[in-house]
Every structure is written in C-alpha cells, then in structure tokens.
C-alpha cells in the first residue's frame, strides 16, 4: 500500500496539534507506572495493563481496589463506569468513521483518548467531508499512545527501585483527586460527587465492596436530581 500525500499531511497535522497534550500526559504516565507496581502488579503486568487497557483514569482507579483485594467484578464495573465518557465520544465519532473498514474502526476505537477526541471534535464538525480526517485522528492518537507507553514504562521500572516505606501507592489516589477536579465544573456534579463520597463511607461495611457500586449509583441519582431542581447558572457565584 502506498500512502497518498494528503494522508501523510493529515497524519502530521494531527500529531502536531496533539503534541502539547504530551506535557500533561507524560508525568501522569510515570505516576501511573509507579503506582501500578506499588499496588502489587508485576512489572510485566503493569506494562501489559498500559498496552491492553490504555486508559489512565481506569488504571489508577482500580489500584486502591486491587490493594484491598476487592472482587474482580467490582473492579471491572469500576473500569466500565470510569470509562463511560468514552461512550459519548464513540457516539460523536461514529458518523466520521462510518465509511472505514472494520479493522480501521477497531483501531480508532482502541486508541481513542480524551485530549485527541476534544481536538478532533473541535476541528471537524459533524458531516465534515474531509476524506483524510481519520489520518488526522490516528496521528494525534498514535502520538499519545506512544507517549503513554513510554512514560508508564519509565514509572514501572523506576518504581521498583523506590522503597516501600514511601507509600507511593498513595500517589494513585492523589492522581485521582487531580483528575476529579476538572470534572466537577458545575454545581449538580459537585452534589453528585459529594453524595457518592458520603455513601461510599456509610456503606463501607457492605460485603464485596458493593458499597462502591451503591455510592456510584447514589452519586449519579443525586447529580441528576440536583441538575433538575436547580437549572445550572452560568454566572452563579461560588
């Protein structure tokens, strides 16, 4: 197969547009690598998790559960919930990639990340006829993928050298705190998040970490109710 100039140009443009995202992602990948090993995964498992799962927030979110030996079903349910935002991305991307072959669509699905999705959705409105836009998406995504694998590898192998007494596994929880902050931009989401935290504490004694699932369900319910009761005000004071 020969690449057409337009494909290469689109690939390059996508990679260049996404390059600034690496600044935020690389330290995050190193922390995830360190945290995976600190939580008790072997180095091979930690590297495999980054390649196979390729979802930083889900990788970090299961670690506190892995440490307390939560049931696998609960950890998988958590992965799914943390990744629900990808369902929205998938719905937005589907019409753009509809004409591609199945292997292309599988590849672009696997490699979707937040930052590149946001850039792509801003660059190509629905129905944009650009025939090379999937190359643009691939360029940005492949750059992010490579950066993520390289930075988690650094963390995985550096993490083995750090003494256990430093409690580095706590870095995964701190990473989640940094991650949750940009998500709680409107007041209804804040109420939902607070309710989820409160129920998680109250229900901590339930068997099989069912308290976690109860907390997530309560958080969603309270967030939706809050959004309905008090329509969001763009100019409301904090």
């Amino acid at each position, binding site marked *: 197969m020969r690449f057409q100039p337009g494909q290469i140009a689109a690939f390059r443009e996508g990679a260049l547009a996404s390059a600034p995202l690496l600044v935020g992602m690389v330290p995050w990948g190193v922390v995830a690598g360190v945290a995976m090993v600190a939580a008790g995964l072997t180095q091979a498992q930690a590297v495999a998790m980054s390649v196979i799962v390729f979802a930083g927030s889900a*990788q970090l979110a*299961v670690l506190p559960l892995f440490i307390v030996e939560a049931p*696998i079903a609960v950890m998988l349910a*958590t992965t799914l919930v943390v990744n629900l935002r990808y369902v929205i991305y998938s719905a937005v991307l*589907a019409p753009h990639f509809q004409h591609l072959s199945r292997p292309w669509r599988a590849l672009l699905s696997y490699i979707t990340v937040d930052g590149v999705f946001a850039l792509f959705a801003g660059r190509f409105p629905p129905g944009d006829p650009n025939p090379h836009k999937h190359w643009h998406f691939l360029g940005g995504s492949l750059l992010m993928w490579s950066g993520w694998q390289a930075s988690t590898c650094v963390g995985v192998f550096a993490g083995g050298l750090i003494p256990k007494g430093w409690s580095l596994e706590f870095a995964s929880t701190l990473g*989640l*705190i940094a991650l949750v902050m*940009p998500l709680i931009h409107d007041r209804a989401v804040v109420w*939902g998040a607070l309710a989820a935290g409160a129920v998680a504490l109250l229900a901590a004694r339930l068997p099989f970490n069912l308290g976690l699932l109860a907390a997530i369900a309560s958080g*969603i319910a309270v967030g939706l109710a809050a959004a309905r009761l008090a329509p969001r005000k763009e100019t409301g004071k904090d």
Partner: protein
Amino acid sequence: MAGDPSSGWVLIAGMGLAAFCARAIFVLPGSRLRLPPAAERLLRHAPAAALMAIIVPDLALVQGAWAISIDNPRLVAGLAAFAIAAATRSILLTIAGGMLALTLVRVLAG
C-alpha cells in the same frame, strides 16, 4: 488477590475488554445512532461519582473503620491535595503536594 499474579492477568484482560467496549460501542458497528439527551446526562455524572466513591474511602477509612480525624495522615494529605488541585489544576503539583503533606503529618505525629 494482590499477591496472586494470575488474578492480575484476569483483571487486565477484563479491563481491556471493558475499556474497548466503551470506546467501540458506536464506532465499531458504524452506527448513526444519536444518544438520547437523558442518557448523555447520566453518562456525564458517572465518572465524577465513581472517582469520588474510590477516593473518599481511601482517605477516611483505616482498616475498614472510619478515621475522620486530624490524626489520620491520609485524610489530611488528601484534603491538602484537593485544595492544591482546585487552586492549580496541576496533576504534578497535586501529587507532589499530597505526598509532601503525607510525609509531614507522619513526621509531626512522630
């Protein structure tokens, strides 16, 4: 479980499948379906709720019992991290500040 390598592999395979399904759900079948607004609202609230449901018990429980006091280094460090995250929006500063706070509280508590 944390000591059993085989369960780690099962977890990784399952998580890989879950992550791929969430990303592929509309793209892979080549769907033109639009998400109903109600579903979109629900999906928007889920990630923050899930993350908080993991964070809060990790800070405020010690061996399954409530430990809501200034003597709990993880709670103090976690609250410091929330403040840093809100003020700076920096992942690196949040993690560095939180680890520093954890160390300080432990040293001060002797």
